[in-house]
């Protein structure tokens, strides 16, 4: 019973946060100068401007537009793209987010695993060569700009060697380079994070107990230290997931991947309010849900937490 109450409370808080995000972004969006019709060529006949405004309800007072937007949002309708007339934002996000999720998901998984392993190595060989190498890799991964790495990879693997396609999506071969570039970020994040978390765990008393039981060196790491140091890493998972999506912007545009990143970039470029709003709401929902999912996993995984909820 306690858990149900916990979930309901969290859902309530999530809704409030979402509501605030939508409100802030909505009014923020309207404060951007410039008008979405500017992509039309030459001087615009008055009639076209009127039609356009009416079609998107832009001619109504701002507050009414806000109420209409909320009502539609409640029904899951994020409105119609300004830059691409006739395209529903919800449908576009529905179609493109799986692509980003697929690419991003694999990159995150790879990044997580490699990052964790590197973090453990760095912790075990603290202040010795492997530690420095791992740290340099972790930092380089974050400092070298993506828009340098991506074209370089293209040049080497696609143009010179011809092993991989330069752009596009669909077959696993298409995924290799984008995933490689996108994985840099989680590798760097989790390597550094796992190192400090592992160092922290190795200093605990129960590690000594395990050693005194004759448990082998590797098992002490895998069975005891890893699990306890992985727990805190879960907490930054939700941040990483949103990071992956935003990270995809560059990679998707460079490799022409039809993900949510490319759409978001085009929408900012075209002042496409509805698409920007839609994507922002999508990210907000994603982050808030991930936050809840991560907390939930944490409760499941860490026995100490669960008890606390029951005794409250």
């Amino acid at each position, binding site marked *: 019973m306690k858990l149900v109450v916990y979930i309901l409370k969290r859902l309530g808080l999530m809704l409030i946060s979402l509501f605030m995000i939508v409100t802030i972004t909505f009014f923020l969006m309207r404060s951007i*100068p*410039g*008008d*979405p019709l*500017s*992509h*039309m*060529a*030459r001087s615009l*006949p008055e*009639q076209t*401007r*009127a*039609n356009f405004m009416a*079609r998107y309800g832009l001619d109504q007072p701002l507050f009414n537009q806000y109420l209409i937007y909320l009502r539609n949002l409640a029904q899951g309708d994020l409105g119609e793209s300004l*830059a*691409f*007339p*006739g*395209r529903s934002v919800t449908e*576009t996000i529905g*179609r*493109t987010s799986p692509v980003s999720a697929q690419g991003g998901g694999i990159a995150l998984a790879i990044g997580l695993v490699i990052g964790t392993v590197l973090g453990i190595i760095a912790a075990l060989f603290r202040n010795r060569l492997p530690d420095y190498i791992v740290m340099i890799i972790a930092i380089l991964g*974050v400092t070298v*700009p993506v*828009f340098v790495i991506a*074209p370089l990879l*293209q040049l080497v693997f*696609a*143009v010179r060697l*011809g092993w991989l396609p*330069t*752009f*596009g*999506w669909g077959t696993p071969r298409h995924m290799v380079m984008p995933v490689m570039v996108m994985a*840099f*970020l989680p590798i*760097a*994040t989790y390597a550094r*994070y796992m190192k*400090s978390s592992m160092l922290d765990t190795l200093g605990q008393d129960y590690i000594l107990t395990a050693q005194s039981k004759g448990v082998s060196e590797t098992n002490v790491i895998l069975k005891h230290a890893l699990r306890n140091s992985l727990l805190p890493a879960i907490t*930054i998972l939700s*941040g*990483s997931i949103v*990071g992956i999506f*935003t*990270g995809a*912007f*560059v990679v998707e*545009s460079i*490799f*022409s991947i*039809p993900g949510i*990143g490319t*759409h*978001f*970039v*085009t929408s900012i*470029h075209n*002042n496409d309010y509805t698409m920007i709003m839609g994507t922002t709401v999508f990210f907000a929902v994603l982050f808030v849900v991930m936050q809840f999912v991560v907390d939930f996993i944490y409760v499941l995984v860490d026995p100490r937490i669960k008890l606390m909820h029951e005794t409250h």
Partner: protein
Amino acid sequence: MKKQRTLSFLFVALLALVVFAACNTNNNDNAAVDVPDAGTSAQDNQAQTNDIGEGALDTVQFLNLALGEEPRSIDASLTSEAVGGTILTNIREPLTRIIPLYPESGYMFEPAGARSWESNADGTVWTFHLNNNYWEDGVPVTAHDYVFSMRRTVAPETGAPLSFMLAPLLHFDEVNAGELPLESLGVRAIDDMTLEISLTSPVPFFMNLTTDRVMMPQREDIIALHGERYGSGGEFTIANGPFRIESWNQQSSIVLVRNEHYWDSDNVRLDTVTFHIMTDATTRHHAFEAGEIDIVAVTTRQWRDHFYGMSGVIPTVGVPTQTITYAFFNTDDELFQNENIRRAFMIAIDRVELNEVAFDGFRIPTYGWIVPSISVGEYNFREHAGDPIRELQANHPDPRELLIQGMQELGLGDDPSTLNVTFNLAGTDEWFRTLGEYLQQIYSVNLGVNMQINFAEWGIFFDNVQNGNFQIGFMGWGAFFNEPFDVLNIFMSETNAVHTGWANAEFDELINRAMVELDEWERLQLYIQAERILIYDEAAVMPLATTTLNSFRRDFVRGVRPSTFGDAVLKYHYTSGRP
């Protein structure tokens, strides 16, 4: 500590918006397009690439091409951008198509939607006899489809951005303003296979209009079926051109396949054409080099030199386009109301150096408003009109003297350093920043004024220009068809299309006379005098350079006829010897 991690990896994520920056040649016709040109003259290029000669046809005929951005819509009435036009011209059949003559220069109108056509004595009534063409669903194309399409484009509630192109039609103004019903527009179907268009007065360049998207047929029932979604995707339109849309997955690719019901289908050799949407220019170049796309438009001199010598690649470089890159003054501004100040600013720039530095040597320095590719009948305009700006520079070697003269006329003393001038640019990427920094330095040195550059997104720039809060603006302007009228009428008093606020009665009168003058030589002289007023006397606008077409294609791609005003249809393309 973990929140810091989110911040630090976000900044890498923040690199997300790199894509549309420098490399995106959003080639809608009025944003400045940085298409470089070559040292070699355009003419010898022309000859070398038009090898329409037969080669052994490959068994499977397909082409992979790249688009810099995704078309916003392919609704013939509502789309105004070039990318939309590229798709439309391949899936829809206008009345006629314009093809470059080979080997001599000039163009010819080829039968397309119409089998043949004739006009009455004074050229105010044109009759078109349609080919028996069919829509992709087998329904025959009738004159009613053309009538419905033009009426829809002109109808006020459609709000078509390019409706003014049908202005020469009878009663256009009244119908477009809603004062007269659609039926009174000067277009009607005599019978299923004959279409009659009547004009308010004879228009020398009328035939050019018949090749444009505004005169493409549309199906009333299909539009009713899809409603608002019409033109937003492959399955929400219908084709009657050489190809039809097989699939359109957004931000990824548009696949066209041969349209069996097309009247000239057996002359069409390609089975499939895939347009890959690739916003990143570097990726496009890599894709071409890796053989994944067959034609690429080159954006910088380095890439052009890189491909130029490459084996198996045919260049088409330095072909002048119909777009002039220019700056324009706000003549209502208290400084730039004076023509001498405007003339001083116009001649203070060395256009060759500007082209080398800011346009990477990819354009053709231009000293008049009409681009070199435009002619009147068979007279090339530039060859006969000379260069007004060069003359002005010869008469006033020191632009500062002209500036001071203008300042004194306005009673602003004689010290240029007291003047604060802002130059508005329509973009924020690094191409614009290079241009801005160059202009800032040149004007500070040559005229001694202190110059501020204002960078803004296209939307914000256009807003400022329309509301007149700017001093100097920067844009590109493309002619729709090969006739000076198309780029001069925008400066007539009542059409404030370029928001200079400039009006000149003598100029208006010259243009009105030219509009009805059927004799080419006479029309040419009228345009020359008009340009002289616009540039030499008043300097309302400051032409800088003409953009050029620079692309490379694989040698197995044949039947290509690159030209400034030619149709971008892939009807005659084929591949022979694809590896």
